[in-house]
């Protein structure tokens, strides 16, 4: 039963990885990373139940809580870049 869900998740991980490798823009890759992260949360929950050690759900919980911080860091990174660009354009 758990295998159905795990196999679907694993195949989707492969598809997301393909998108991450193909690009074309950096943001497609960010999207793929984020999607890969949520799929990892699901995979870890399903495998924790499959192993019969439900106390290991802590791992999935950790990912569910902090996985999106990477995307926020990207937003901040782009914002800094755009700002610096704007400043140098104004000076020039």
């Amino acid at each position: 039963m758990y295998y159905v869900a795990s196999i679907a998740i694993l195949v989707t991980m492969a598809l997301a990885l393909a998108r991450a490798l193909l690009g074309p823009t950096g943001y497609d890759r960010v999207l793929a990373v984020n999607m890969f992260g949520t799929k990892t949360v699901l995979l870890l929950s399903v495998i924790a139940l499959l192993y019969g050690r439900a106390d290991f759900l802590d791992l999935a919980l950790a990912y569910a809580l902090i996985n999106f911080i990477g995307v926020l860091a990207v937003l901040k990174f782009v914002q800094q870049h755009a700002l610096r660009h704007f400043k140098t354009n104004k000076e020039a």
Partner: protein
Amino acid sequence: MTTVFGIFLLTLLLVTAIGIVRAKDLFVAVMLSGIYSLQIAAVFFILDAADVALTEAAVGAGVAAVLMLGALALVTREERPATGPRRLALAVVALTALLVVYATFDQPRLGDPGAPVHQHVAPWYLAETARLIDVPNVVTAILASFRGYDTLGELFVIFTAGIGVMFVLAVPRDARNGEEPSIDSAGLRHHLIPRVVGRLLVPFIVLFGLYVQFHGDYGPGGGFQAGALIATGLILHALIEGERAALRVVHRNVLLGLIAGGALLYTGVGIAGMLLGGRFLDYSVLRADPVAGQHLGILLVELGVGMTVTGVLLTIFHAFAARASVR
């Protein structure tokens, strides 16, 4: 069946690794490293290493990405087409690869219970932990008590790395205060949705970090994972509100106190054991009952680890961020 999952994930891992090396844009390389970390954490979990997977999750998902992007913001993003000694490198790598693959044929098969690793001290740890220390998580017991000396060494490596980053990226005090607050350090305040959700989640992340810290004797967790998680939560706060606001909440001196205090606490517990008539880092003498002494010692030592890791990771984050604002 899970073995097959592991093999599938490892294949994806290899593809990702080659993608990282081939990426010309360093931003892309950093993003692919994020996927790499997720995959390897899942592999660790499938291979029964729940504690290690939790550490990789706590470190790889938040701190690593933020740190790499923080460094990338300070250097150029594009990699120049390589002119390095590629032929020579390939030859060296191929030769080494042959040697390593040849050596793997002597390795015991995956999961072989008769492998030499499982014959040495590990069975003793598994058998005696319940009697001597009485915590279910054997990893925590070995980390904090049986091999506490090793962990002390690792903690001082982290301590030293933190101090090193502080020295290398130090910003002169007048440069820090003289400049008017730029939008650079204002964070993501004007983005309503991340701000609301982030503010909601920061306490939960820190709370979960504390749970991992103090539940580490019973489930996967401990000081290293908790430190990374708490640091991630505070980094999220800093990303949303800007570094200046974050530093007003958790002041630089508090961070320094955490770094030094954690290392001191760990060493102090060791010395307390000596003063009470035991050996260095022998917790049995801390209380009248040896097992209760072990519990107290592990709790304090893990707390020290958590403090130092939190302090070091946050200091590193602020060091990179401060460098960006003076440029």
